[in-house]
């Protein structure tokens, strides 16, 4: 196993098309999204328009094979641009991106074609309910959804406590454990329409922030899985294929929150620099670390675009580093801004909560470290 070489000094060149896409994304983020960021965070406004506009701008298309080779670097940069302004929306872009991965890699024609194009264009929006299955597969917790085989598919029952980027006309990818009659068990993955029969969305308790993420509890009652919505029936193999991209796109969310925090430190430097110099984690210092991490992340993203397999430890490590850096940057931004950053309406205050979310959303910082330790331990005969 070899680590990604990190000492590449120049950044990865951007194509004209991706530059134009990112310019459109930036305009949406800094315009309409910035105007409602606080309402999304505290009042629970779900930014449906913004998420659709981002699709029209081409953000969700970048990671797909629709234009030939996927461009994970641009997809990642887009998530960063959005997350710099609003972490909650950055997170929902990631939800949409994860759903994109499921649809594209499922190989199921019912999830391809026009259905896929509408999704990639942002006309329809989707989420991911893989937090529990991802944890279940690494032995952290049991699977919450249970499936039984019927003549033409499966029947699924159970409840997921919180699934994000949902709405009445949304959909999401989920997984359940099939309990076979002979006692054996295996997992299936499938797409769920929020308005489908057997699906009930349930209001979640209030969160500390990021209220507008369209997060609901989902109750499954005799929900039907068949050829029309099956994503994978060899789930471990499927997840092994998508896991690097799934985790890597999430890194963009952490990088963006960290960048937003650093920007707000610079915003007060002229006025408060004479006292802020006594703080540690100063903006220049954090920026250098963020730039190096961004470069490292782009290199892994480029490997993914080229169809290569990055080292799993590298993928987990950049995700963990982005969490740690977002936490430090948000905390330091609050110290740099002082009282004005303590106002409930301050973006700095919001970013502190966003950085907490970066560190606890699956795979959480603790899960990442546990998994890295597991992968670093030499296997021995039982």
């Amino acid at each position, binding site marked *: 196993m*070899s680590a990604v*070489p990190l000492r590449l000094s120049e950044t990865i060149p951007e194509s004209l098309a991706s530059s134009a896409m990112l310019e459109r994304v930036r305009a949406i983020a800094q315009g309409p999204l910035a105007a409602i960021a606080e309402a999304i965070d505290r009042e629970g406004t779900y930014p449906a328009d913004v998420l659709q506009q981002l699709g029209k701008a081409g953000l969700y298309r970048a990671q797909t094979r629709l234009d030939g080779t996927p461009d994970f670097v641009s997809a990642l940069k887009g998530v960063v641009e959005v997350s710099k302004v609003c972490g909650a929306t950055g997170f929902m872009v990631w939800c949409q991106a994860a759903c994109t991965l499921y649809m594209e890699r499922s190989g199921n024609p019912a999830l391809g074609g026009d259905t896929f194009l509408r999704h990639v264009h942002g006309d329809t929006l989707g989420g991911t309910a893989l937090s529990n299955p991802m944890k279940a597969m690494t032995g952290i917790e049991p699977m919450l959804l249970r499936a039984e085989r019927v003549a033409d598919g499966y029947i699924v029952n159970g409840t997921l406590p919180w699934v994000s980027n949902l709405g009445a006309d949304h959909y999401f990818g989920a997984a359940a454990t099939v309990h076979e009659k002979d006692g054996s068990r295996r997992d299936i993955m499938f797409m769920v329409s929020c308005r489908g029969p057997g699906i009930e969305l349930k209001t979640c*308790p209030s969160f500390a922030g990021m209220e507008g993420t369209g997060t609901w*509890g989902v109750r499954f009652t005799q929900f039907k899985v068949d050829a029309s919505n099956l994503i994978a029936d060899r789930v471990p193999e499927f997840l092994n294929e998508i896991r690097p991209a799934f985790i890597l796109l999430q890194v963009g969310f952490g990088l963006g929150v960290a960048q937003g925090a650093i920007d707000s430190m610079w915003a007060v430097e002229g006025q408060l620099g004479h006292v802020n110099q006594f703080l540690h984690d100063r903006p220049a210092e954090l920026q250098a670390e963020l730039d190096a991490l961004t470069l490292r992340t782009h290199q892994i993203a480029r490997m993914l675009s080229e169809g290569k397999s990055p080292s799993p430890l590298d993928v987990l*490590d950049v995700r963990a580093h982005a969490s740690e850096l977002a936490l*430090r940057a948000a905390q330091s931004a609050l110290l740099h801004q002082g009282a004005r950053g303590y106002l409930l309406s301050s973006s700095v205050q919001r970013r502190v909560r966003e950085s907490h979310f970066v560190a606890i959303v699956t795979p959480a910082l603790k899960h990442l470290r546990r998994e890295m*330790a597991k992968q*670093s331990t*030499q296997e021995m*005969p039982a």
Partner: protein
Amino acid sequence: MSATTAVVRRGAPVEPAVLEFRQYICRACGLIYDEEKGDPDSGLAPGTRFEDIPDDWECPLCGVTKSDFEPHAVVALNRTGGTRDTVNMTRCDAAGVVIVGAGTAGWTMARAIRERDADMPITLVTGCNGAVYDKPLLSVAMAKAIGLPSMVKETGNDAARRLGVRLIPETFAISITRESNTLRTTRGAIKYKQLILAHGATPRTDERLPRSLCWAINDLRCYTRFREALGKPRQPQHIAIVGAGLVGCEMANDLALAGHVVVLVDIATRPLASLATEQESDALLSAWAALPITFQGGTRIEQVTRQGKKLVIDTDIRIAINVDHVISATGLQTPSRLAESAGLDWNNGIAVAPDSLATNVKNIFALGDCISINGQAYRFIEPIAKQACVIASRITDGEPLTYAHTRPVIRVKTTSKAFTV
């Protein structure tokens, strides 16, 4: 309210098992349903037994149903977790020297620094528990009847206290961020002023010798598990050792003297082929004649599989070897991930300057099994003490010492016929 509850309320003399209220935990969100308290908000009176809760009842916090709850046992917490030894103290602590690895090289390095500087902060990060032991014992301990407990000379904590070292055990170094002089680990990031890599080498991987079936013994942890798997002494087991180099021959010798039946397999036609002369190999084989050792030379392993309680080794000469245990002793390789993440020069190991043992990054040094000097790795104990002194002299005040590499004397500890090459 159920009858049981009524009985409890009156404090009637019923069985203690009936009296006890139980708790159930939501597997999704961790909410605890306490029978004693019930869930009045959803109509469950205090004292409602879990089995009396209707199936459509929902977790008041996250909305999953009763079937997603499981019994919750209150366990006394072991509060030794986040002690000063293991917490991440990246920002407030003065960055000192960080050493990666607590084998002979790591501990020798810590001691060499401490002998020159009483105050320099030293942090030692290791994937193991940090126990101090003599690695050469791993291939001679059984014949000497040395029990496992007495192989540990000092616990990691005791050594850390003695040397004034902050030991971070059971922690894996994942990458180095050179821009911020930070070592990233599975317990958080650690700042360093100087970083010393002493992480050694790891057994070469070979898909024909899967780790789930074969022992690749290179540290005390694996050796301990192997000894435990062997069971009590005086119960002879059949053991195949793949690789008749130094380690393979020493282990074959040790296991045979302890009464086990050993077959030693190598692609070469004589043991120690790359180290010793033909006469020396012959002398070793003659010395082994009285021992239960079979040398199976000129043989390549095709695969190892489990068949019942036995392991079967298929070879290219159509001989299948049936044994209880397989040891893979096919050599070591240096893990490259830390070096690559820091952009260290690599030449069959971490390339260090022959005189200073510095890497191409000015505040990163390396010693022991993980380095190479002019492209050559020397994985022996003897040079480590000298290397540690040179590095210590270069990161503390005083006259910098210069390393002079000499070919180490190699003692082959095949006690039946020991010799020096």
